[in-house]
């Protein structure tokens, strides 16, 4: 049985982002596996460990450098991977079509994992589109997954203190949330082993992807400007408290 895990190659959240051209960024910074996708890979590996004949396949649409992210996914437990190569950044409508086509041409999924959101484009939607194109049920922000041969029971955190429990037939798509597990950070031997695992590289032209009518195109990217100029609150704790109350009342007008 195949568990597919969609992983995105994203800039490290601590990296400095500089805009290049009108819509791009300087890519000479550290990129890594999208943090939510780490939970997705970890969960797939956990399920594999307790199921017979299961293969975990990491799938990524990205530039050539995204190979590093697939290596990271394999060091964390994926058995092999598929890199759908593209030279440009793609919106989630195209991305989901490409991921669906790559999965379909590779094999029949038992489960498809994604993260709940990518930290670069923050789209919050690829998993739903992927499920639509594959005609599968989907749940997101999963914090607990119990899989059996005909389906999964999944707990999803909707908001603080609200958890929805869903039953989905297999195959299905699951968006991993942060509460799902602690990522399997790889050991050195894991990393060495991952170097021998295979990566299948395919171009978007080799996949059957119908051209979408809809799209989301970035027209301009600008650095977010900082609008704060810090002022000190001084004096005794009571003085500071009084100044805070004054700010809340007279400046922010929230009380």
């Amino acid at each position: 049985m195949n568990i597919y895990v969609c992983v995105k190659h994203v800039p490290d959240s601590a990296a400095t982002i500089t805009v290049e051209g009108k819509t791009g960024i300087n890519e000479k910074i550290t990129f890594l596996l999208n943090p939510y996708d780490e939970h997705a890979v970890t969960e797939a590996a956990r399920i594999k460990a307790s199921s017979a004949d299961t293969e975990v396949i990491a799938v990524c649409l990205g530039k050539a450098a995204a190979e590093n992210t697939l290596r990271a996914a394999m060091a964390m437990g994926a058995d092999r991977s598929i890199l759908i190569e593209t030279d440009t950044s793609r919106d989630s409508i195209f991305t989901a079509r490409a991921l669906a086509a790559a999965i379909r041409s590779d094999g029949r999924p038992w489960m498809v994992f994604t993260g709940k959101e990518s930290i670069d484009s923050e789209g919050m939607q690829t998993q739903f589109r992927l499920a639509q194109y594959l005609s599968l049920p989907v749940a997101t922000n999963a914090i607990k997954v119990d899989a059996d041969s005909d389906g999964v029971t999944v707990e999803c955190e909707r908001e603080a203190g609200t958890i929805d429990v869903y039953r989905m037939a297999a195959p299905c798509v699951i968006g991993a949330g942060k509460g799902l597990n602690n990522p399997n950070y790889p050991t050195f031997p894991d990393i060495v082993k991952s170097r021998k695992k295979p990566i299948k590289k395919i171009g978007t032209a080799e996949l059957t992807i119908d051209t979408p009518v809809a799209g989301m195109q970035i027209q301009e990217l600008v650095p977010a400007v900082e609008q704060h100029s810090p002022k000190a609150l001084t004096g005794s704790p009571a003085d500071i408290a009084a100044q805070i109350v004054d700010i809340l009342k007279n400046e922010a007008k929230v009380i």
Partner: protein
Amino acid sequence: MQPIGLLIEFKSGHIKPANFGMATAARAENRQLVALMVDAPADDDKAALEAYGVTRIVNIHTDSNQWNPAMHAAAVVAAMQENGITTLIGLTSPAGRELLPRVAAQLDAPLVMDCIEIDLDDHRVKTSQFSGKTIATIAMTGTHFIYGMRANVIAPLEAPAAAEVIDFSYTANHPSGFEVIETRTDGSGSQYLAESDIIISGGRGLKNAENFKLIFDCARHLNAAVGASRVAVDNGWVPYAMQVGQTGVKVNPKVYMAVGISGSVQHFAGMKTAKTIIAINTDANAPIMAHCDYYAVGDLFDILPALEKALASMTR
């Protein structure tokens, strides 16, 4: 008149105030605002919707008596089709994160979540990307357009109108392979962080779970929500749902107080758009102190009790 669908949300039986900002952002001469209410008939709230310019209210009835995102999204799509709606606006709230992408996927329509600006005529929006480090202008193309707005980016402005109320029953095929077993609520999520005007967050400086009481005590007087840094969450002092930041909730309050929080890039990714940021920290060189509006160099264990006292005497 172009009909614009507004996906209305409720909290404790009332329309969330952020919906009125959404209505304000959508309003224009050549548009008709249509409120879509899923399994929450507008009886009591009709007047409130009218005050913000809604002229049609569609009460969508599904045959599920509980939250079911797959079913609710399918019902919204059916109601949009019935009412000739090709533009839908909702909030980037917990329910919006479930429903809007499902609607967009079904319609194969473009969707941008967490919009801070929308232009419904040109189908152009602004949203933050790369953990809040950049602002992207995105052009959407397609036949339908779905917008997820960030709560509180537009202040609600009244524009009274009269609304007709229409009932719409959705009984079509139940989405297959997806079933809701139960929804558990532990009552802790009293106020959703992203929609709060005031947030007080605690970090490693709080030292343990018990000390968070100091923050909750101040928050109660202000009807504020309580947030936390990842360190406070990872240490198990507060639940993950309270985490503010890149891998937590992104918030946009009028006032954000960071108490015992250093101000890492990842924390900033979740709160940098707050209008007023107040930091309390013993370390004058903590990054937060250079990226806020007001900072107090001092011990939170002295300042929070003093603040609680000041707030208590004021609200009494």
